[in-house]
């Protein structure tokens, strides 16, 4: 800022004090926030996994069998002596430093509750180093293969569970009819049209599909007998997914390979589904998990094998599973007391209870997942629609331009309205006036969509506005209509920004409690909701009421497990959206 003390004779002296102070102030601001959040997360994880009761031997065992091999894998992939030296230096030096600092604080200042230096080391040094090495390792071929493989396994399983959860509420029979009568004919017509160059068939595809869907809704009550759920999922999801996988492989490797890559996982998944049905497990979910894990993984494996690079990466899941098994065996053999985590499988599959050890979150998880799925669709459609109209179709000047600006200012103000007000709106409008019912899932989804709509609109508008006008003009100059320009130029270009805004808004929606209280959502339900009009509870509601329970086990253990579950689901959801966004970015 030379003008601050301008000197007519030349450049003069410029004080750097303000600049340096500013730099350190911004550093302080970021460190404060991150450290506070970090401490909160550390304590929540310690409570949820009962790490305070983990003996040092237990921690050391798993560190050696699980964390060290993982780090070694990442270092092997990175294949960079400098990184290896740095990582080992931090791990070793951190051990001494954390132990010394921790002991010093404990003896000189205050005792630190429910932490010991081993845990502090894991959180302060172990976790960041692991994250850094994961990042570095995944950048190279071996790591990319390993994490790509692992990600498809985990992501497919998560997707299968999520789809299975949605079908708890949405009528699978309507879906079966709609798919058979609407989707299949539409896709067939379209494919026929493009293969034989019959544009009429392509044009007819959409109306035919819509007709089929409408027919399905009417036929739902008329048709008396349906295939079992397992067959419905096999026909409507497993076979199309396998077909898509085969299609992806066929272009590269020919039909035989495609049939093998898609057919083997499909057959395994179908066999698994029928076996699960025989064993009394939830067969449709087993089928969905197997097929959504198996097909993408098989396609990925075939692609990597073709490329012929980084095949060692496939060892990563084996390494992790082996580490867990070896750790468990060693702990068992040594007789080391293992911690008893609150967040265990039964917490995710059981209903809430008055007994802390039996309490579970299952109905609330299902409620939250269903609501957030509906909110994502609704707010995306409404938000993108509104912002495209405001940005692309409204005039910039004249009385209508003024009206547009007034609307925009009001939308921005709506983003600051407290969520309780949206709750009241939802209670009055959706629950009472439209008669959708107090505390039902559909009322909640509509209310939360309205709540985040302003955020979605504003971010989508920003994204659309940032598309350079040159692109629009270029498209216009080619003779494109406004619809073609919007569809082919503006939306693809703006999609990453729109998705970023939607992700942030959904993160807010999944954690909301106040509007749910206002619309009368239940605090505790004992069964997962089975229709859009059944009462539900959401994770934040259940966590809130647990936090008020008299027993300390609820307030510390069960609440912490609930918070971690909520965070994991949030991260999973955001991860999916980020993947989609990155794909959209690459598409450009």
């Amino acid at each position, binding site marked *: 800022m030379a003008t601050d003390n301008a000197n007519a004779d030349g450049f003069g002296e410029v004080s750097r004090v303000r600049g340096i102070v500013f730099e350190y102030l911004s550093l302080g601001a970021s460190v404060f926030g991150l450290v506070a959040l970090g401490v909160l997360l550390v304590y929540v994880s310690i409570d949820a996994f009962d790490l305070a009761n983990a003996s040092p031997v237990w921690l050391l065992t798993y560190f050696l069998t699980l964390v060290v091999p993982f780090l070694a894998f990442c270092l092997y992939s990175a294949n960079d002596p400098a990184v290896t030296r740095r990582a080992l230096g931090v791990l070793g030096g951190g051990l001494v430093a954390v132990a010394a600092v921790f002991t010093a604080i404990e003896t000189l200042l205050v005792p630190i509750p429910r932490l010991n230096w081993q845990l502090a080391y894991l959180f302060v040094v172990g976790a960041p180093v692991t994250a850094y090495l994961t990042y570095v390792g995944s950048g190279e071929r071996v790591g990319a293969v390993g994490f790509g493989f692992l990600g498809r396994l985990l992501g497919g399983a998560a997707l299968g569970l999520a789809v299975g959860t949605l079908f708890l509420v949405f009528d699978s*029979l309507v879906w079966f009819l709609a798919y058979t009568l609407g989707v299949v004919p539409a896709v067939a017509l379209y494919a026929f049209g493009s293969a034989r160059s019959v544009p009429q068939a392509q044009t007819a595809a959409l109306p035919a599909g819509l007709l089929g869907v409408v027919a399905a809704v009417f036929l*739902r*009550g008329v*048709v*008396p*007998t*349906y*295939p*079992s*759920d*397992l*067959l419905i999922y096999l026909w409507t999801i497993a076979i199309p997914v396998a077909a898509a996988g085969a299609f992806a492989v066929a272009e590269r490797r020919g039909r035989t390979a495609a049939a093998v890559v898609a057919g083997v996982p499909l057959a395994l998944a179908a066999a698994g589904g029928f076996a699960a049905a025989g064993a009394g497990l939830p067969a449709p979910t087993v089928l969905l998990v197997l097929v959504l894990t198996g097909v993408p993984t098989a396609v990925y494996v075939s692609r990597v094998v073709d490329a012929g690079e980084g095949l060692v990466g496939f060892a990563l899941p084996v390494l992790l599973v082996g580490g867990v098994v070896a750790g468990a065996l060693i702990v068992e053999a040594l007789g080391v007391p293992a911690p008893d985590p609150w967040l265990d499988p039964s917490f995710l599959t059981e*209903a*809430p*209870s*008055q*007994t802390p050890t039996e309490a579970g979150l299952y109905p609330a998880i299902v409620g939250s997942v269903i609501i957030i799925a509906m909110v994502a669709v609704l707010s995306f459609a409404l938000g993108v629609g509104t912002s495209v109209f405001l940005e692309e179709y409204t005039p910039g000047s004249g009385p209508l331009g003024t009206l547009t600006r007034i609307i925009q200012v009001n939308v921005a103000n709506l983003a600051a309205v407290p969520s309780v007000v949206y709750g009241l709106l939802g209670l009055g409008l959706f629950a009472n006036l439209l008669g959708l019912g*107090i*505390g039902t899932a559909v009322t909640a989804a509509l209310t939360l969509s309205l709540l985040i709509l302003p955020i979605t609109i504003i971010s989508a508008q920003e994204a659309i506005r940032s598309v350079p006008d040159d692109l629009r003009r270029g498209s216009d100059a080619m003779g494109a209509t406004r619809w073609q320009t919007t569809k082919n130029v503006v939306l693809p270009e703006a999609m990453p920004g729109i998705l970023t805004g939607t992700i942030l808004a959904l993160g807010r929606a999944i954690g909301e409690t106040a509007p749910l*209280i206002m619309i*009368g*959502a*239940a*605090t*505790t*339900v*004992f*069964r997962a909701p*089975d229709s859009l009009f*059944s*009462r539900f*509870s959401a994770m934040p509601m259940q966590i809130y*009421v647990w*936090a*008020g*329970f*008299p*027993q*300390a086990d609820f*307030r510390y253990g069960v609440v912490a497990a609930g918070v971690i579950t909520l965070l994991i689901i949030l991260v999973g959801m955001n991860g999916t959206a980020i993947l989609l966004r990155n794909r959209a970015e690459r598409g450009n």
Partner: protein
Amino acid sequence: MASSHDADATGITRRKSLAAIAGAGALGLAGCTQSGDGGDGGDELSGPINIAGSSTVFPLMSAVMEDFANEHPGVDPDISSTGSGGGFSNFFCTGDTDFNNASRPIQPEEEELCAENGVEFVELIAATDALTVVVNPDADFVDSLTTEELAQIWEADPAQTWDEVRDEFPNEEINRFGAADTSGTYDYFIEAILEERGHTSDYQATEQDNTIAQGVAGDQYAIGYFGFAYYSQNPDQLKALGIDDGDGPVEPSLETASSGEYIPLSRPLFTYPSIESLGEEHIAEFARYFVEQTTNEELVAGDVGYVPATEETQEEQMSILEDAIEQAQG
């Protein structure tokens, strides 16, 4: 399909074998069908039960619901903790819930609201609670208060320092933590202690007992009140005061509350089923189950921390309930 090879010899044509395979497949699939109505029939109880109301009754009701839901897989109960008053005015008297829990009797204006909307109900006693006044464990100066002293602390124009209440108390400011005005605990405290003297607004009001406990535990000169359950689960965190209603101080406990010594702060807890809802068999059955459980020592006293009903009270409640069910199902 080896059969096509020697079709003439055996009389098995390709068409026939295809038909046979299709027939077998259809038979196989027939075992994998379901009917469109998806009903699970039978006389098993099924249907939703919606309950809202008092956060004090919440742990008791939710424990009973949990057991009932485990016994009857078709029943889908849900419960919201809204406060007694919030539950009546927002959900029960508008006909949206089947039961409303309350930690004090229904009030006249709420009865009017229910009557306007044509909601009829019966009153059932769920358990007895000992409303507990707590101070910080380090507050050595006080072990008990008379009802008059308690009223001085909480009335609309309250004492500001402890020595205004009793001369030997320290000259320190009183920090109050209590129930919010949507709570039945708040209403009952006014009725039992304050009456027309009104409740102070100079206090931290909350529906969460935990917040009261944290506030009092962190401040040597704080005072708070809430249901007995929280204190019984965390006796070391806070100090409960004896209450002197003229016959010497009585400490809150399940014994003193059930024997009637702990007055005036031992209070009945209620639940109000809607008569219309009792017309549905699964709700009537749940109400019966609830009344049966009110004498269950292990559940009411052990798990939740309230005083179970006596056999006599239970019989009375059961006959009130049966009359209501009869009226509803007529």
